[in-house]
């Protein structure tokens, strides 16, 4: 294969995942949280594709496509939630949305 080894791709994937985690844990706006979630999913996708290439097995790509579909669904539902919350005139701040507090 031309270019870098799989290992480099995997490193990028790891970085993306970590970045996404950081975003999920640090940001308070639900929109940004969703975006960070997307980054994490994409990081995972990259790893899948890399290994698919490494093994010569296209199942990894199938998996990646399925992940994409699921990510899309999840974004749809998440955005619907955010819109509903906004309509209720609540603050879009995950720290304030703690009604399930025990």
């Amino acid at each position, binding site marked *: 294969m031309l270019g870098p080894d799989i290992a480099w791709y995997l490193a990028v994937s790891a970085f993306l995942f970590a970045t996404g*985690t950081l975003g999920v*844990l640090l940001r308070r706006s639900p929109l940004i949280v969703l975006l960070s979630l997307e980054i994490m999913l994409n990081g995972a996708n990259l790893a899948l594709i890399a290994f698919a290439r490494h093994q010569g097995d296209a199942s990894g790509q199938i998996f990646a496509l399925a992940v994409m579909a699921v990510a899309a669904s999840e974004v749809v539902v998440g955005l619907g939630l955010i819109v509903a919350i906004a309509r209720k005139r609540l603050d879009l701040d995950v720290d304030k949305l703690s009604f399930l507090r025990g």
Partner: protein
Amino acid sequence: MIIAAWICLLAPLAAALLITLLGTRISRRAAAYVSTTSVLSSFAAALVVFAKLWAESPDQRSHTSTAWEWLNAGTFHVGLRILVDPLSVMMMLIVSGVGFLIVAYSIGYMDGDDEERRYFGYMALFVFSMLALVQAGNLVILLVGWGLVGLSSYLLIGFWHERPAAIAAAKKAFVMNAIGDATMALAFFILIQHGQSLNFPDTFDVGPGHGWLVNLVALGLLGGAVAKSAQLPLQTWLPDAMEGPTPVSALIHAATMVTAGVYLIVRTHAIFEQAPRVQELAAGLGAATLLMAGLIALVQTDIKRVIAYSTMSQIGYMFLGAGLGAYGSAMFHLMTHAFFKALLFLAAGLVIHALAGEQDMRKMGGVGRAMPVTRITFLIGSLALVGIPPFAGFFSKDSIIASALGQGWYQDLLFAVALIGTLLTGIYAFRLYFLVFPGEPSPFVEEHLMHGSHAVGVEGAHGESHGHDTHEHRGEGPFSMTAPVLVLAVLAVIGGWIQFAPLWHPISDWLEPVARPLTEPTNTQEALASLFAVLLGLAGIGVAWVLYSARRWQVPRWALGQRLLEHKFYFDEAYDFAFYRPSVALADYLRRWFEEPVIQGSITEVAGGVRDLGFWTRRLQTGLVRTYALAIAASLVVLMVVFVAVR
């Protein structure tokens, strides 16, 4: 014959069950009749058994019948087993015969009581229990009967349960009996452990070299006998038991239950003979009791208490007899005592009944004027008690006293004590008679008896009015009450004639195969003993006459002695101090330092702990998504390490 024996045993039980099940659906009188009839049928069945047994030759007179094998454990078998032999038949006759008379008497005595049915149910239960005790074919069934008579006694002493004194007395009786039950059970355990079958008529030979074991067993049995028969040191319950109705006192605490201890010793004499020291101890306890009880009876003011102490004393004689090995004499005295003691109690009951529940002798006097029949019967009973010929006590008591002669210094001491006892018996018995019956009626008696008013209520505070007014003429009780008393009076006269020791002794012969006596007094010893006993008895009567009837001399005043006797030698106080107070203190201590902090505290601690845990866990639920996400991320970190490390 076996069937008759079972009928004898089970008839009263059937009556008790019937009365219990039918409850208020039958009238009170009907319950009384059911109970009385069952005991009568028991007596009839016992007569049949006796006749059949008599027809056989002496060495064949032992039959057993097992209804059901109850316990089978290796070589140890226990069954529901009854034994028909001379000793058990004798007891059966006494229990059912005297029992029948007393239950019949109760029909009149308890008439009008609200809870009459319960009373007759309990009486039937008692008769059944006592029969089970005497007909038992092994020690286990005997223990069952033993416990049941204790229960019946408790139920009947506390019959008038609104009276706190009665309840307390019932508890006291039961607890003291329980002590005896415990020692008996321990004795049984030792026997079982040494491979003995507990069946009669197997001998209980534990073989040589087991001396101290046999002593333990005998001690355990003696403990049970002492508790049941109210001997030293477990005698304090008997006077208190007089809180029960008078027929109960007559049946249970004179004629039958308290004699169960004597029966036990005679039945298991084989064990006692292997533990001679314990047997001597039994004799000693009997002698000590008879002396002590006689002394205490001198200062009692309650009619029933005097008779109760008299019972204690007479049973002391029986223990003395059994302890000396004179089993036949002891059983004979048991029989005559049943007659005259029941007579005394029932006659006293007539007086109490007529005087509307009054039991204090000091208020009575001249009752004989209004109740001559009662007076005669009471006199007969007292003479029999003191042992004046030709009344019953003379024949039986003197044989026991005679058996003490010529065996050693210890037995001679017992002989002396027994004779002193006769003197005391004369004094207290006739003190009672002279204070109550002869002479001019006291003001109290005037009020109640002479004007033919009808009695209101029986002794005690349960305030029922009686509604029978047969006191009109001469103040005697109703026929249903006087008839049994008359029968007993006749028995008290002729009952002793069945054995006159040196000359003819059918009773001892009858019992010989079962309980061969260890000593047989010679004719001279008998004569000597009788002479002394009668003389001392007459002397006692004389003293009583002088002090209480003719009032020639004053009763000597000795404050210390008076106090000692009135407090019954301070036994109650001693037991209270030695047992009751420490137990209460221990219970209190345990409650304060263990029950509340530890047990209850642990519950509240656990509850508190759980609640605190809940509070802590609750703090995890912050409601903030970010914290949850952080938790997930953290667990992910940990899991990754685990998965890699564990592999």
